[in-house]
């Protein structure tokens, strides 16, 4: 069970992006989080994947709160999550080949020996041919790179998947293929999924349950401010 309890988070304590949001994902459940651009859903996804420390509130993972971490959550907690970001181009180290990219989490956790076998297996799962694996990110397309990023997210066999607009930059057939890979993985392992996006049709079809950002907000929402107000003198 992944519980986000009254999360307040952001990049400036005085103006948090996420205010008092709670969300629960049951094991094996697929939750789609919908919301307009800039509302804070990506920040919430980062908090859920233990990549961003909330200013207030707790992330509870299987009944134990993940707390008291200053810069990074404990490693075994972090690696329970596989994360796929929106922009494959920015979420891949430009100096690593795709096979190194996919194997990197295994090397980082001291399981180097498994790497060749797992990389070959995952490359086949996500549909990457062997010649693509020796290329670097700038030599492949966005779709191919996102396939590699999904493979990297699955390589440690995470119990939770967090997809932050995974398909936003991709064409329809690649999106469908990647969603199929995620669904297949979940069917085999019973992993939970938090998928963030703004594509209602896709998320409604993909997930067991979709929630809209507005329904998660705390009772006292932040008053709507015109964009220019920040620049005007008080």
């Amino acid at each position: 069970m992944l519980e986000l309890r009254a999360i307040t988070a952001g990049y400036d304590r005085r103006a948090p992006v996420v205010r008092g949001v709670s969300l629960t994902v049951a094991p094996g459940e697929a939750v789609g989080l919908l919301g307009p651009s800039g509302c804070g859903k990506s920040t919430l996804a980062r908090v859920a994947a233990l990549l961003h420390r909330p200013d207030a509130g707790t992330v509870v993972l299987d009944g134990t709160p993940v707390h008291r971490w200053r810069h990074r959550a404990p490693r075994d907690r972090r690696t329970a999550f596989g994360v796929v970001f929106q922009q494959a181009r920015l979420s891949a180290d430009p100096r690593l080949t795709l096979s190194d990219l996919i194997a990197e989490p295994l090397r980082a956790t001291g399981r180097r020996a498994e790497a060749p076998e797992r990389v070959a297996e995952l490359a086949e799962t996500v549909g990457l041919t062997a010649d693509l694996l020796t290329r670097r990110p700038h030599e492949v397309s966005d779709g191919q790179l996102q396939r590699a990023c999904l493979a990297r997210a699955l390589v440690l066999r995470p119990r939770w998947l967090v997809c932050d607009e995974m398909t936003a930059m991709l064409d329809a057939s690649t999106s469908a293929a990647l969603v199929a890979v995620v669904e297949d993985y979940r069917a085999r392992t019973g992993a939970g999924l938090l998928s963030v996006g703004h594509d209602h049709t896709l998320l409604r079809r993909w997930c067991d349950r979709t929630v809209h950002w507005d329904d998660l907000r705390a009772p006292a929402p932040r008053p709507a401010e015109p964009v220019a107000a920040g620049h005007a003198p008080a």
Partner: protein
Amino acid sequence: MTCDAPAPAAPPSPAGPVWRSYGGKRRTTRTLRVRVSAALLAATVLAVLLVPPLVQLDQQAVDLAAKLQAPSWEHPFGTDDVGRDLLLRCVYGLRVSLLVGVAAALTATVIGTAVGAAAGALGGWADRGIMRIVDTVSSVPHLLLGIFIVAMFRPGVWPVVVSVALTHWLSTARIVRAEVLSLRSRPYIDAAVSGGASRWRVTVRHLLPGVMPQAALAAVLMVPHAMWHESALSFLGLGLPTHTASLGTLIQGARGSLLAGQWWPTLFPGLLIILPTLAIAGLAGAWRERINPRRRSELML
């Protein structure tokens, strides 16, 4: 739409094509600059490496009968005030200056990269503390600090290297820290953290390789600067002992004869400081253009 026959080709105008591209011309200037710089640098390095073993002459040989001779075929650069051949002295001086320049630049870059990467990767209080130390050290004029360090040792090559290195890692540290901070906020670092990478691994595997081009460029640009510092320290009489030929000691020793109208003992060592400096700066400039983020396909946004 009908498929017309291709329009007859425009007759080649005697004034050349209508479209003129300036891109090719600019590229040619750049190529020329790189080639000239590389040739100068190669000539300097070859002279430094080959002349001493090939010309079995003693650079310290004093010949008072031949003192202060103007450049001639026998002595292309002339002789100094005790009759030593200036070409040979200059080559030996360049040798010492380049050695000091390269050694000091490398040491300064290693220190600067380590400190900058530590500050950038640790962040928070550690970052603030380290950068305040950097600010404090850089608030002292660095030639003064260098003189202070040199004065603690006996004159020689290594004290000069230490002095120049210890006063020149600050700018590299700042550059590397800024680069690390900008790389640290990229999603691929998030992905590495999520994949279980420790802080050390993130720094060594993902951040440091990313700042290497900038650090190397800083190192290259540091070489001529360090050579200048060696010359300045020697000129002030603090660097190398006077009998050791270095470009700085050569110019310093020639001050008296310059006033008497003998220009060659000052001109040639001076030129040998300026030419490698310009050559290295020319190459580094071309390199900087290459690593310009806009031209790097892998980081195109």
